[in-house]
């Protein structure tokens, strides 16, 4: 695969490590009363769609950026690539 890095342009996916579901950006509040439930859900349950999937990739053999890819799991087509820090900072955590 080729990932269109938002800063560096097209890079071979071999340079990256995939972590998985971008919902991991939405870490719950550890002090909330339902933290046991929200952390279980956060850590263990996945939507796992056959279709558009938002997921985290790390440019480990490159600039060490964490990226959020929007990718179709049926075709591997990549629809969007964003810097994870931009996604979080702009509030659109997922």
């Amino acid at each position, binding site marked *: 695969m080729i990932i269109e890095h938002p800063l560096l342009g097209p890079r071979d996916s071999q340079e990256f490590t995939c972590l998985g*579901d971008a919902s991991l950006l939405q870490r719950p509040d550890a002090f909330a009363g339902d933290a046991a439930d929200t952390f279980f859900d956060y*850590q263990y349950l996945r*939507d796992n769609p056959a279709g558009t999937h938002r997921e985290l990739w790390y440019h480990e053999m490159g600039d060490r950026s964490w990226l959020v890819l929007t990718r179709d799991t049926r075709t591997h087509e990549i629809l969007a690539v964003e810097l994870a820090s931009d996604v979080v900072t702009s509030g659109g955590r997922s």
Partner: protein
Amino acid sequence: MKKLGGYSGFRILREGLTGNRGWRPAWRDPEPQPAYDFVIVGGGGHGLATAYYLASRYGEASVAVLEKGWIGGGNVGRNTTIIRSNYLLPGNEPFYEFSLKLWEGLEQDLNYNAMVSQRGVYNLYHSDGQRDAYRRRGNAMILHGADAELLDAAQLRAEMPFLNFDNGRFPIQGALVQRRGGTVRHDAVAWGYARGADRRGVDIIQNCEVTGFRIQNGRCIGVETNRGFIAARKVGCAVAGSSSRVMQAAGMRLPIESHVLQAFVSEGLKPVIPGVVTYGAGHFYISQSDKGGLVFGGDIDMYNSYAQRGNLPVVEDVCEGGMTLMPMIGRARMVRMWGGIMDMSMDGSPIIDHTPVDGLYFNGGWCYGGFKATPASGYCFAHLLATDTPHETATAFRLDRFRRGMMIDEKGSGAQPNLH
């Protein structure tokens, strides 16, 4: 076993002499009935085995298997055919050992030669720490009644002189061996269970896609399909690879991601590799089929995928490991690479459990170890469906284990499916 219609050498002689006109369909293609006691969703290895054991061991007569395409077309038809029970944890080992025992009697049970071949599974170790971990595992196997041997480098070299003992990046120090492990002709498993189930009255319905579950008052009363509604007392889903997609129709989110695992086969070669070998310092495992092809694989591609195909980095990674471990295979040519969809669970272990919906049962999360589990998975799922209690070897495969902190994590990789 020489009953009418049975398979045997004698029958082959008789048919051969009479133009092979007497062979009957291995399974029928019946029209679906309006209602069954048990509907199994998924005509893969696990679904067919479930139906077979429901009929043969639990005496259930009203069973249907619904398959959206052709039976055996999922992971039972695209794997590397390995069977073994070399597990560490008490939640896993009794189950996989039960499975291995079922494999050992499978052909006589099914009257179908699936070519169960116990040529041994060799897990190589390359450091003292890895040896210690294998020692712990081997002891766990023996304590659970399985077989295991720990070979040092000299013993291993005597059995497999072609391994790269002298010029590899990581030294080969020895291996944990399970002699009873080996390989099975994968497609034949699906066909054998299908034929066995069919002969016991199970309806195997191909080209029948389940599109939804009919749930009334918290109870599942049947399935919607492209061939109409089919009522069922109990519905069991065994659709590993598609678990999330199918169970979403029942409103469930699962602790599962779908990933692609690639595998590879070479042209037919005269026998060179006796058993199954797994490299402990890279991602590579290999065996040689009865046809002579080298069948090998390695790691998953690491990203979620339903595409049933992978990419080059893993191909290269696998071959780098293979060439480092056994440089004699360099001039063997790969003829085909393929990919299957793996239900990767959050601890690397499967789930066989009832769901929050009454009458709906789930079997999945097999990661890339589902093939060897086929007989026990079918048996235990049949047991759960028939008795509503988990089989004694499958008590740990519960859906709520993550919430309760009872993970069955052989690798210790944690809640990251692509690492299991």
